[in-house]
């Protein structure tokens, strides 16, 4: 039971999406039937034989992913869209920010700002692409927030740019849609729930510590949200897609939890 209270400014009117679970219902069925039995037997073997690891058994992995899908729902229920993440002082800001991607920093390809554009697709009225200069014409916001990586490290960063909510309103996005998806210059993808997209501390960041984003950190525009783990913050965004169709992402395809809320 995760239908949200309708009292919040930031909640989507449509309530929480059931489709993620529906999509995983096959996995849940497997979990109920063979998964648990097999898992229990395998587990017994595992606890007796160190080194005999069943993690990559297809059935086991499927059962674990089914629980991860349930964890999406639990996290959506725990998420308070009115709660602001703690913010920090300017002197705590790490400069430059910590580089992180699925490849080393020397593989970062610089973007040509003269030709760069951001595609806006899906359930939006105005599908005209955005140029870097367009972001400067929008209301700006700055947040000094903690970046939390799923690996365990963290740092304080000073991010500024256009609130994603303001951007979505500007392009006439359907704010009752379920998801906002992102495609990136380096092939990275991710998607977040609309409630997270509308949170005031979710920015399309163009600046770090008052300077335009450097190449390794997602120039010219990246997502920076205070309420999700690091891998839910795609860099070098080239397309924003508003949709009711659930899409996974780069790390999420590899087994990281989709919701990734903190």
């Amino acid at each position, binding site marked *: 039971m995760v239908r949200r209270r309708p009292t919040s400014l930031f909640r989507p009117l449509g309530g929480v999406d059931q489709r993620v679970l529906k999509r995983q219902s096959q996995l849940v069925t497997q979990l109920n039937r063979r998964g648990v039995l097999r898992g229990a037997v395998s587990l017994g073997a595992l606890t007796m034989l160190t080194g005999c*690891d069943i*993690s990559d058994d297809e059935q086991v992995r499927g059962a*674990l992913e089914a629980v991860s899908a349930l964890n999406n729902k639990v996290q959506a229920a725990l998420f*308070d869209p009115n709660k602001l993440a703690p913010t920090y002082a300017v002197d705590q800001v790490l400069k430059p920010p910590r580089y992180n991607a699925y490849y080393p920093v020397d593989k970062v390809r610089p973007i040509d700002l003269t030709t760069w554009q951001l595609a806006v697709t899906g359930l939006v009225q105005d599908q005209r692409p955005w140029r870097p200069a367009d972001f400067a014409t929008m209301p700006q916001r700055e947040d000094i927030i*903690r970046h*939390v990586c799923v690996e365990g490290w963290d740092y304080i960063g000073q991010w500024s740019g256009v609130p994603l909510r303001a951007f979505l309103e500007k392009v006439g996005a359907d704010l009752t849609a379920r998801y906002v998806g992102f495609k990136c210059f380096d092939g990275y993808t991710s998607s977040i729930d609309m409630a997270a997209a509308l949170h005031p501390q979710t920015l399309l960041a163009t600046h770090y510590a008052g300077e335009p984003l450097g190449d390794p950190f997602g120039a010219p525009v990246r997502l920076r949200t205070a309420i999700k783990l690091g891998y839910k913050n795609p860099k070098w965004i080239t397309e924003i897609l508003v949709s009711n169709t659930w899409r996974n992402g780069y*790390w999420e395809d590899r087994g*990281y939890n989709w919701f990734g809320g903190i």
Partner: protein
Amino acid sequence: MRLANRDGTKRLHPWPVRVMHWVNAIAVIMMVGSGWRIYDNDPIFTQINFPVPVTLGGLPSLAYHLHGDGGFSNALLWHFTFMWLLVLNGVGYVAYGLITGRFRRMWWPIRPREVVAAVIDALHLKLDHEDVTTYNAVQKAMYVGVLTALIVIVAAGAAIWKPVQLHWLVALFGGFQGARLVHFLAMVAIVAFMTIHVILALLVPRTIKAMVFGGPRVPASQPTAHLMAGE
């Protein structure tokens, strides 16, 4: 649920205790194994790493071949699955211990002087194990200690999982990395407990048998008898 017999006795370890004990053992082993693999991705102490074979998350090369990630996601999936088993089972266990009076009866009181005396006895290999129905002061302190460590590790884990939604809890642990450190140190305490616990249990196998089959019958003392009889 009748745990007491008509003659006013019950097993030393009633069946709920036994079930929850072994479920807890499985949950802790799975959480520690997967936690070690997660830890290795970003060690708190650079000189402390857990070799892959003692961690839970699969063979890195196979995992990478199957889903493009060297087992880290496997470890995360294990950790965020078995946390439910650990927490739900733990809540049941604590509720049972409090409601039936088992905690008070078995673990209380712990007198520091007795703990010291028992430690000295233990060092002289003089601890008496003839009677498995009562715990000496060291045992009491150990059981209370490991339960405390489990509660702390769950609280620190919640702070790490939801540092924004539960930021007051993060503050309690002195920040995000503070919560990670407490989570780690509580793991060390639990693993240390388990090591001693298993060694001593193997030295006195009757204790293992008791935790499987229930052990000797003991008087169903107050207030257990009242509660169990449903009064």
